[in-house]
């Protein structure tokens, strides 16, 4: 009996010793602080790496990574869904941090085959998902303390946003317009990151009978009756001018159109579901509150 227990103890101790050894070896090999050549594939991945104070480890980013500004100086590996396997391998990364929709699948398969460490971040639509993303990233970079600190900070901001959202006297109806190409409204329905953000800020998504980003007919836009129209602040072809929104025959008839209540926020800030999500929700909440006050 005792000998059995002893043997079990021995095994546990040996296991523990091996674990310590492995950890020591790993940290020794990596100069005790994890991967040094990281490629970020996805806007929130790069953002989290920088928020963890590990921006100097990034060697490349994808087209959707645009925050903070320092990330723009890095080489661009292309659109997150059309990555090139050889070009990525050629950068000799020791970690690729990919958002859930990075691809194409052939590239991901070859990278796995080539033994390039690839960590996929969970898809984020809720505050808990944001924290999970931060924790996965911090783990992959080998900086759990910085991760815990960032998570705590983000949690506090998310909590503040939740409190602010709960204290809104009325929940305003918000219509998120993704694009207005050719006068056609492409709006956020249910199951979109925009809808999740609107809910976090204390609003109600004005479109409830469509899921995903879908074109809205003029009548559906009027029926949605938004109190506020929310758009992304971006340049180029996809830019949406306030005049264009208000002059739209259907949008002009909605409460938001009548009062000219159009909110603009940076796309990655608003929909990236990275560490700035709490701040973004709070900012949107304040803007909604301002709109309500104006409404009386």
């Amino acid at each position, binding site marked *: 009996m005792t000998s059995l227990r002893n043997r079990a103890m021995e095994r546990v101790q040996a296991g523990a010793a091996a674990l310590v050894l492995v950890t020591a070896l790993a940290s020794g090999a990596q100069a005790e602080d994890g991967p040094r050549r990281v490629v970020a594939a996805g806007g929130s991945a790069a953002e989290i790496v920088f928020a963890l104070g590990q921006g100097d480890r990034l060697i490349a980013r994808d087209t959707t990574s645009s925050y903070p500004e320092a990330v723009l100086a890095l080489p661009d590996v292309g659109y997150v869904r059309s990555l090139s396997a*050889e070009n990525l391998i050629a950068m000799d990364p020791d970690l690729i941090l990919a958002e859930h929709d990075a691809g194409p699948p052939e590239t991901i398969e070859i990278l796995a085959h*080539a033994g390039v460490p690839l960590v996929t971040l969970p898809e984020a639509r809720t505050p808990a998902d944001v924290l999970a993303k931060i924790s996965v990233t911090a783990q992959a970079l080998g900086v759990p303390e910085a991760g815990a600190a960032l998570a705590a900070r983000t949690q506090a901001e998310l909590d503040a946003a939740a409190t602010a959202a709960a204290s809104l006297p009325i929940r305003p109806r918000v219509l998120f317009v993704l694009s207005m190409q050719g006068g056609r409204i492409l709006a956020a329905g249910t199951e979109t990151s925009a809808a999740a953000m609107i809910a976090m800020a204390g609003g109600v998504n004005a479109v409830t009978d469509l899921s995903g980003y879908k074109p809205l007919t003029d009548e559906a836009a009027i029926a949605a009756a938004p109190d506020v129209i929310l758009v992304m602040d971006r340049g180029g072809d996809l830019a949406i001018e306030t005049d264009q929104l208000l002059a739209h025959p259907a949008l002009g008839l909605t409460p938001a159109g009548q009062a000219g209540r159009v909110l603009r926020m940076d796309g990655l800030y608003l929909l990236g579901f990275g560490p700035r999500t709490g701040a973004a929700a709070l900012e949107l909440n304040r803007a909604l509150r301002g709109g309500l006050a104006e409404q009386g």
Partner: protein
Amino acid sequence: MVALDIPRLAGEREAQARLTLFVLAAALALAMLLSLSHGASGVSLWSLTLGDAMPARDRLILWEIRLPRMLTGVLVGASLAVAGAVMQGLFRNPLADPGLVGVGAGAGLGAVLAIVLGGLAPLWVAQTLGYHLVPLAAFLGGWASTLVLYRVATRAGRTSVATMLLAGIALGALAGAVTGLLVYIADDRQLRDLTFWGLGSLGGASWPKLMAAGPVMLLALLAAPFLARGLNGLALGEAAAHHIGLPVQRVKSVAILTVAAATGAAVAVAGGIGFIGIVVPHLLRLATGPDHRYLLVNAGLAGATLLLLADLIARSIIAPAELPIGIVTATLGAPVFLWILLRRRGVVDL
């Protein structure tokens, strides 16, 4: 004097065509070597010839990335060019293109359906096919539209080429409308996927894909040279071809099947790559004449070479990102084609 000149001219042309064949074959071999030895990672072929100890990473880049990509490029480029040449011969129309007979449109429709509505497919479909769903749908789309056209245009065992051309245009319009409808309901991400697919790329090349689509393209390419005599006969007109003893109907059937297989499979693995199918046969016809015995083989060699070179540019010009290959083929090819047409204006009336 004049009567004596004609055979001499024909002989010269034949010699020239044969020379072109050798030059093109050499060019293709060179392009294949370049394609294998050039890439962002700096792995070169020479390390292979030095033999032994090649790092696992380099071996993987050569065998799993560059080799399937190069072979896919050769087959797709050759298929597109040969399909174009056969089509133009069959319709006796220099404007004919696989896009016209509805094969391209049908394949495109299949791909768009799979991208936009793929999520609605039953789970077992997604599990068994995975990401092969889009190429498979493209192939089936091209195949189905060819079958429909063939049935519409064939009556009592005779295929009317003119009816098929017209029906192809109608089917193309229909496929375009359904594609438009799907684009209308597609979401943001699907739109990006559609755009990239429509511009074509060899980036997704892999052994499993090549194993699936490669044999189809290879079969079509091997069948094409046997069409040469038939297409040469058809150039005289169907009635004349019949009188010189050609099995006209069989030539037409085999030609249509070849085009459908080559185009469908090529579009399935590489997406929509324009320009090669219409321009390569033209350039060769300008250079070495309309004899299909040389035209078909030369078109295959030149198409493969051009696509490999375009792919080299596509994957290195904005490295570490990659440009869709359709952009390269059109930007480089179209001006060159226009320039040649301008220079040869008056010499050859197309």
